[in-house]
């Protein structure tokens, strides 16, 4: 569903991605671990065709994202580290707008409220302007937007950043539910525990390279920590 084939990205002298090859099949959650600047977000940006690879190719559902930027983005849901919403609109209005843009369909108010409730945002909060929201509340709206899209693949860039532990745990459950429904998930994270908890596969990136590609089920928490620290050069 999600494929990176020898993807490199160069910014001037800096090689942000260096021949990254990975694939995420339907029903898989691929957690990308790595320090800041390892190239995780750059890879997500390549999948979203916000950045064109210097070499290689990224595909979604078999389509080259460079040649089919609109079609491929229509097949994925994206949650960034910081969800950006319209401050003068309420959470409900933001969801209605982005959901309609993403799906081409208008959802009813009860449907929208149900969706927000499922990510932990009640009606009283939903009708408030987003300018009054905390980061976690915004993130919940972002997750609702992604869920509304009912996409076949998720691209998540530090999605639980800013969420409280309860909300993060609920989000992990949502991801597992999506995985069970055959959704392919590529998520970046710094959080080893989150990666171990949700990932069916785990990749470790360093200086733009994918230095490890592991089956999540084969790893213990201790193994993962040791591997991570080894590759980070600690």
């Amino acid at each position, binding site marked *: 569903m999600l494929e990176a084939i020898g993807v490199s990205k160069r910014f001037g002298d800096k090689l942000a991605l260096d021949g990254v090859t990975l694939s995420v099949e339907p029903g898989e959650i691929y957690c990308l671990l790595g320090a800041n600047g390892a190239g995780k977000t750059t890879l997500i940006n390549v999948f*979203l065709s916000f950045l*064109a690879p210097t070499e290689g190719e990224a595909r979604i559902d078999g389509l080259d994202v460079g040649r089919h930027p*609109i079609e491929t983005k229509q097949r994925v849901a*994206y949650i*960034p580290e910081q969800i*950006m919403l319209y401050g003068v*609109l309420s959470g409900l209005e933001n969801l209605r707008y*982005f959901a309609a843009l*993403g799906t*081409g369909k208008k959802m009813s108010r009860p449907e929208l409220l149900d969706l927000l409730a499922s990510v932990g945002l009640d009606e009283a909060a939903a009708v408030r302007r987003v300018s009054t929201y905390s980061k976690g509340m915004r993130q919940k709206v972002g997750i609702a937007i992604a869920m509304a899209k009912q996409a076949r693949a998720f691209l998540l860039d530090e999605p639980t950043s800013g969420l409280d532990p309860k909300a993060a745990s609920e989000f992990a459950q949502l991801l597992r539910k999506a995985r069970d429904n055959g959704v392919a998930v590529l998520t970046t994270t710094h959080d080893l525990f989150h990666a171990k908890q949700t990932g069916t596969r785990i990749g470790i990136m360093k200086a733009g390279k994918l230095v490890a590609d592991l089956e999540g089920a084969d790893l213990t928490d201790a193994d993962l920590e040791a591997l991570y620290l080894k590759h980070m050069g600690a």
Partner: protein
Amino acid sequence: MLRLIAAKDLIEYLRDGRLYLAGGVVLVLLFTALGVGLERHAEVAAERVAAQGLDYDDWLAQPERHPHDAAHQGMHVFKPQSPLAILDPGIDPFVGSTVWLQAHRQSEIKFRPAQDATGLQRFGELSPAWVLQVLGPLVIIVLGFNAFAGEREQGTLRQTLSLGVSPVRLLWGKALALCGCVAMLLVPAAVVIGATMSAANDFSASDTVARFGWLTLGYGLYLGIAAFGVLAVSALASSSRVALVALLGIWIAGVTLVPRAASDFARVWYPSPSRLEFNTALDSALGEASARAWQAEFGVTTRWGTDVPLDRWGQALQLDDNVSYPVVDAHFERLWGTFDRQQALQEWLGLAVPLLAIRAYSMGIAGTDFAHHREFSVAAERQRRTIQDIVSEDLVEHADARGAGHFDYRAPAELWAKVPRFEYRPPSVLWAVRENLLGLSVLAVTFAAAVALAHLAAVRRSRS
């Protein structure tokens, strides 16, 4: 999807107060301008109807008198006022609406400095056209400067594009929102014009409706240029602050500096004579033509000597009139041709500064430009020549050899009735459109260029 994007942008404009502030100020100015225009239109129309009747009645009511005295009294004729002058008074305030038809000379109303100023002086005058031409783009700038740049800064642009929304659709949705806001400004103008069309005037209601339609098209293109131009700059700018500064710079140059420079440039490129130069050249040409005619007809050039006694005065006047007509026509044709070339040059410059094109087009379609004034002036001159020919013919018929006693001749009142009432039908809307095809074409081409630029900018922005 376009409506969805436009509706979201409209809600933002309303909730952050920009639409109320910018649009409110412009609406107040627009209503004020419409009110002033309406009042002026009503006053001028009433005065014109009353004065035209009185003036012709005065002509008919002349007692028995010498025909040449009557010709010197002449009569006034009045230019019909277009209902759309409420929207765009054009050059009317500078050239007036009255022509005095008197003996010997074509009325000087045809040559006023305002004619080649093409509305430059109107920058100090509040009219709905001025509000739309100058403040319309400013409202679009205030509303749209951060359409892309602001969303990029907030991160919402990335959020939107990540959903698979085409940047071109996003562009058109945002353009729809901007144009929707500006369209609201045109509604009051349409209502007022509709109300005035019910009043009797020399422009038919259907003609006025058609002209209003063409005006709407022109302003639609003009404001569309502004909308897509603003969106293009917003998409290209690195930040909303940069976009705002750039757009305000373009606006200031476009509405103040460049139009003045273009007007001066047109006059340098196609020089037109000063009023004094024009009159001197015309008088000289008339003198030469008259001398030649006198030499051919009477064998002398000396006026009213023994060779041409006063009993041939009517014949001499007729001779002078007949030789003067082609000379006057040629001089005015040359002058008007220069004005036309100056005007066309400014309209071409509208490709870079659309204000120049819409200003000329707006006046032209509203019926308040120089071309309409010229049509009226030509008709008025025809009437003057009719009067002149009638009285000169009468003098020829009643010539006698009584020397100074010649002036004792009194024409009967029936002679005055031979002069028909001045009837003038303004040119049709099709004529006006033909006259202004250049301006309309310039607006259409510039609009297409602005749309293309905005497309490129939006697509470029979606990739970075």
